[in-house]
């Protein structure tokens, strides 16, 4: 049974698993790495591309990405040109399903007079068409379709361009916020996130079972929804599995979220208007598109970095590896203030590959408890959670409505973030706190989640209910 919701994730996982096996065995030689392609694509009929030789050539590129990708490029998202299938980009097209009917709804729906019926076939004048899509909706035969590339469609940051000569997709670095939407959406797996699994494994090996230094796993709040649909797998079993990989301890990043909510409440009162800083893609989006608003971004570290700081204060020789749903976290890790706090970032996909490489079967394990954060820290995983937590923190701090009237706006996904930022830029925003989550649904919609199900939000909330600490103040009291 696959853990993933599509086969691109599965393929990526197979490659990562093979590389992880070599890394754990300390056998990352060029020859061994060359063998991976033959293992992932065995002799026989091609399953994905024209022939197994092309498939293997692509796997070789995936191996490079699994090894950390192109070190000269700082962006953690890269295009695998050879894997890009050059999807059509010819805009709105009339397909042979057009019956040449006499209603001509398409013609009438077009605001630009771009459609004519010639010889009982609708014909689109490309010079006039603005690709509004009204004819698509109007046609009774669904005979009109729009060809945009799934990656371009997915990228709401407007960071993808098509190279006119090669027809391959390319990343506009000045626009890309490393959110990874294209990585998840490309049906050919041609846009990928650099992987740092070999770094993580090196840290684990060098720790010699936590004798030389301790390795801490900080797991994102969206951990709660990753395996929730599989009855035989509990969160507590996955914690045991992570420890079996060689981690000393597993801690909820949600505890960092509690700390963030607590101090963000104070900062909000102090500044009067604030945007959240938890989502690294949102912060990048502001920096690249709304530079004037940058001063309003909360100065708080993200929950990941905030918790890592607490860990390192207590154990300066310890290493922190974050495990989450997020590709942009890999970029955040490169920031000056975060580099020394977080030693490596893995995704849930990559965690699964590490477990597979070690032959760890999640179903068969005993349980290890995980309980660090409050309900409010835990619901950071889904849209609206951060706002609820900040409101709660204000209440706990007994800051009354009269002292500060908090009006949060939870922006679910990049489109809502954009609208709010546009308004804020013109000082037309009624609210005074913007919670910005670039992924739809919040972190549970992250590109490197194992699944993306409509039930995930409910899973997060019910896991939140299981927290021992009921208030943020109780959860963070141990740090005073």
């Amino acid at each position, binding site marked *: 049974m696959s853990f993933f919701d599509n086969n691109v994730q599965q393929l990526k996982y197979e490659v990562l698993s093979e590389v992880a096996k070599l890394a754990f065995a300390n056998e990352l030689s060029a020859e061994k790495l060359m063998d991976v392609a033959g293992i992932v694509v065995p002799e026989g009929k091609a399953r994905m591309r024209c022939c197994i030789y092309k498939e293997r050539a692509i796997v070789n590129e995936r191996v490079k990405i699994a090894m950390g990708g192109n070190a000269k490029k700082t962006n953690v998202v890269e295009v695998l040109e050879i894997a890009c299938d050059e999807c059509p980009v010819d805009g709105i097209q009339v397909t042979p399903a057009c019956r040449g009917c006499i209603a001509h709804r398409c013609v009438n729906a077009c605001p630009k007079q771009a459609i004519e019926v010639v010889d009982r076939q609708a014909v689109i004048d490309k010079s006039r068409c603005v690709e509004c899509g009204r004819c698509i909706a109007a046609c009774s035969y669904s005979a009109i379709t729009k060809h945009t590339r799934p990656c371009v469609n997915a990228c709401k940051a407007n960071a993808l361009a098509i190279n006119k000569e090669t027809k391959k997709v390319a990343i506009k670095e000045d626009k890309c916020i490393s959110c990874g939407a294209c990585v998840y959406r490309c049906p050919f797996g041609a846009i990928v996130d650099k992987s740092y699994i070999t770094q993580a494994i090196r840290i684990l090996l060098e720790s010699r079972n936590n004798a030389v230094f301790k390795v801490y796993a900080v797991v994102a709040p969206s951990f709660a929804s990753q395996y929730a649909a599989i009855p035989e797998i509990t969160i507590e079993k996955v914690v045991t599995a992570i420890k079996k990989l060689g981690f000393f301890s*597993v801690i909820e990043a949600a505890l960092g979220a509690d700390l963030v909510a607590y101090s963000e409440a104070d900062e909000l009162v102090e500044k009067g208007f604030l945007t959240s800083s938890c989502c690294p893609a949102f912060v990048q989006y502001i920096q690249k598109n709304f530079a004037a608003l940058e001063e309003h971004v909360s100065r708080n570290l993200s929950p990941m970095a905030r918790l890592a700081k607490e860990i390192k204060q*207590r*154990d300066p020789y310890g290493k922190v590896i974050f495990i989450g749903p997020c590709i942009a976290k890999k970029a955040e890790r490169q920031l000056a203030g975060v580099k020394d706090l977080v030693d490596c970032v893995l995704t849930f996909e990559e965690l699964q590959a590490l477990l597979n490489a070690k032959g760890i079967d999640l179903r068969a394990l005993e349980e290890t*408890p995980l*309980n660090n954060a409050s309900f409010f820290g835990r619901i950071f995983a889904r849209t609206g959670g951060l706002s609820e937590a900040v409101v709660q923190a204000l209440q706990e701090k007994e800051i009354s409505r009269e002292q500060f009237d908090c009006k949060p706006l939870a922006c679910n996904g990049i489109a809502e973030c954009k609208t709010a930022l546009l308004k804020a830029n013109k000082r037309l925003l009624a609210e005074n706190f913007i919670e910005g989550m670039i992924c739809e649904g919040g972190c549970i919609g992250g590109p490197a989640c194992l699944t993306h199900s409509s039930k995930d939000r409910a899973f997060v909330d019910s896991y939140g209910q299981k927290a*021992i600490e009921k208030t943020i103040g109780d959860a963070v009291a*141990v*740090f005073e």
Partner: protein
Amino acid sequence: MNIYVCIGSSCHQRSSYAVMRQLKAMIAENRLGNSVFVSSAFCLGHCAAGVTIQIDDEIITGVGMGNIADIFQDRILAAVR
């Protein structure tokens, strides 16, 4: 004297937060705030035997609300007085 109370998940489930609160209260009560320092640790490596605390270099397991007062008397108060 430095005391570390484990706030890892296993110890937390066995009420290490309460142990920590209690310890801090007793230290304040006895005005030891200048000589005994309490802080937290993320797991002291004895998860199955918690609550675990560390007094300077010594690990004590099996701590709970039932015996923290005794531990304070015998191990902490006795040592600093």
